[in-house]
């Protein structure tokens, strides 16, 4: 039955903006009930545009999307009644208090008057804002605003939760607390979570499955471990003391595996024989008379997955593209 369906099903979703590229270029994805799905990509990749369409804030140019069993275009009101969302920029009124926001949200969601106060107090406590509840939001820190935004998204006990870069700008402690809360919601309450992030660690720690988006297309999808296993082999990152030796070092290391350009100053090679090939690498470098400033072995990360799929590193990959692809806030 649609009413109990906590899944997200997307087929051929496209969003074009006037005078801009396709921000989302025909994506297909499915998120199972109770799953935490991490949507990973650089700035401007199309993450936020996808969230805006799935939360009925932006109509798709083409394609279909069903959220909680409801079509986002034809059944927008029903979609909104089963989802909660904390968007990239917390939409808060600086002149209202935290408690006022909760009152507004719960009233609009049709929560019974008798339940509103109790629910507000419960959520304020859960996100650690009980003491600041009666202060105007204009005086809140970025972390407090994020936490209030999360509380607002949970007011009506949504079955699906959309979090658009929820930890951007948060201190490590707040970030960990938010991860704990999101994990608890999925585990204990069975909430389906669609989480966008540009932090690899966040997707790695939190998500059951990850979709990697670049230039509006999903370039890889799977569990973090399966994606890393796909890349498989560790890579060696070496840096010569003498800048002039860089070319020679690259040709020496090329014998041990596929060279990777990761955008840094390091010479990077994926070791064909895995860690077993490392002694031979060290011997070859020594035999060639090269002196290294650094030598590191890195196991595959989600960044390596991104690198392998797009030829670029996730870190900074989207710089300068955001304005072109993301809608104006």
């Amino acid at each position, binding site marked *: 039955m649609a009413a109990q369906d906590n899944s997200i099903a997307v087929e051929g979703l496209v969003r074009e903006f006037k005078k801009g590229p396709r921000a989302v270029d025909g994506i297909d994805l499915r998120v199972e009930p109770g799953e935490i799905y991490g949507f990973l990509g650089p700035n401007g990749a199309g993450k936020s545009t996808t969230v*805006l369409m799935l*939360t*009925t*804030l*932006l*109509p798709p140019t083409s394609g279909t999307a069903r959220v909680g069993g409801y079509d986002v275009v034809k059944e927008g*009101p*029903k979609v*909104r*009644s089963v989802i909660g*969302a904390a*968007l990239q*920029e917390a*939409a*808060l*009124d600086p*002149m*209202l208090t935290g408690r*006022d926001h909760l*009152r*507004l*949200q719960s*009233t*609009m*969601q*049709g929560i019974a008057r008798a339940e509103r106060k109790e629910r507000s107090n419960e959520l304020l406590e859960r996100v650690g804002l009980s003491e600041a509840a009666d202060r105007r939001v204009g005086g809140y820190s970025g972390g407090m605003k994020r936490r209030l935004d999360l509380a*607002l998204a949970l007011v009506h006990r949504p079955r699906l939760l959309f979090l658009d870069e929820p930890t951007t700008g948060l201190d490590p402690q707040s970030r960990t607390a938010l991860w704990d809360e999101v994990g608890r919601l999925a585990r204990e309450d069975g909430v389906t979570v669609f989480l966008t992030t540009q932090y690899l660690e966040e997707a790695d720690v939190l998500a059951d499955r990850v979709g990697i988006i670049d230039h509006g297309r999903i370039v890889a999808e799977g569990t973090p471990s399966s994606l890393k296993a796909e890349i498989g082999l560790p890579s060696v990152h070496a840096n010569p003391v003498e800048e002039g030796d860089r070319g020679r070092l690259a040709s020496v290391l090329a014998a041990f595996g596929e060279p990777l350009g990761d955008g840094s100053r390091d010479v990077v090679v994926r070791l064909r024989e895995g860690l077993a090939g490392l002694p031979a690498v060290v011997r070859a470098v020594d035999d060639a008379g090269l002196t290294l400033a650094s030598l590191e072995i890195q196991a595959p990360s989600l960044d390596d997955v991104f690198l392998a799929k797009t030829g670029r590193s996730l870190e900074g990959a989207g710089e300068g593209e955001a304005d072109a692809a993301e*809608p104006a*806030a």
Partner: protein
Amino acid sequence: MRIWPVASGVAWRTLKVVFTNPSLFFPSLIFPLFFFTAFAGGLSQVARVPGFDFEPGYTAFQFCFVLIQSAAFGGVFTGFGIARDFEYGFARRLLLAAPNRTGIVLGYAIAALARWAVTATVLTIVALVAGMNVFGGPVDVFGMFALALLINIAGLLWASGVAMRFRTIQAGPVMQMPVFLTLFFAPVYVPLGLLDGWIEALATLNPVTYVLEAARSMLAGDEVHVLLAFGLAVGLIGGFAFWALRGLRSAEAAG
């Protein structure tokens, strides 16, 4: 999907922000009082002009104009708030939290009404203290306020349609200027019969003229154009409701 929870939430929030921030509330209260004092006091000698035949006097004559003006601009001021909500992103929360988005427009309309009710109450008390004559009976007076109330709703719907299309406070002049011009091309200072030339031609075509004359006639207890005025007001509301809802759809499409 129920519309009332959304409307009541939006109305409560708008009023809370307005009434707890003097910089937002006082302009919509002070300007009508200023206009009333300036027009009714400073121009009171206009009542001696031959042909000025409004029996309750010039204070009552100006009161009706300022009442209608405050109603229209009360709606426009609320439109500024809507534009601000879109510009600073708060409208996104409303669009996301509202299962029924038509309730957002209704909520703003309720807030505009409540806000104007305070202004109208203060204005009426000031006018009565200043010695305004009221010759109409309770039904007439009720009709006058009801007519102003409809103008308030029409003003709000007009301004919200503009606000939701432009989604920036910079659209303020677009909301304000047509209302300002329409009001001041009506018989503001003297009755229609004393106007001459192009201004008389313009005033005769201006629907606000008939709204104003009907309001004044009800205060004087000598009704003219009342049905026409209510018809025009309801027509304006119908047209501007369509305009506002199309504006909402435009805002939804823009994301």
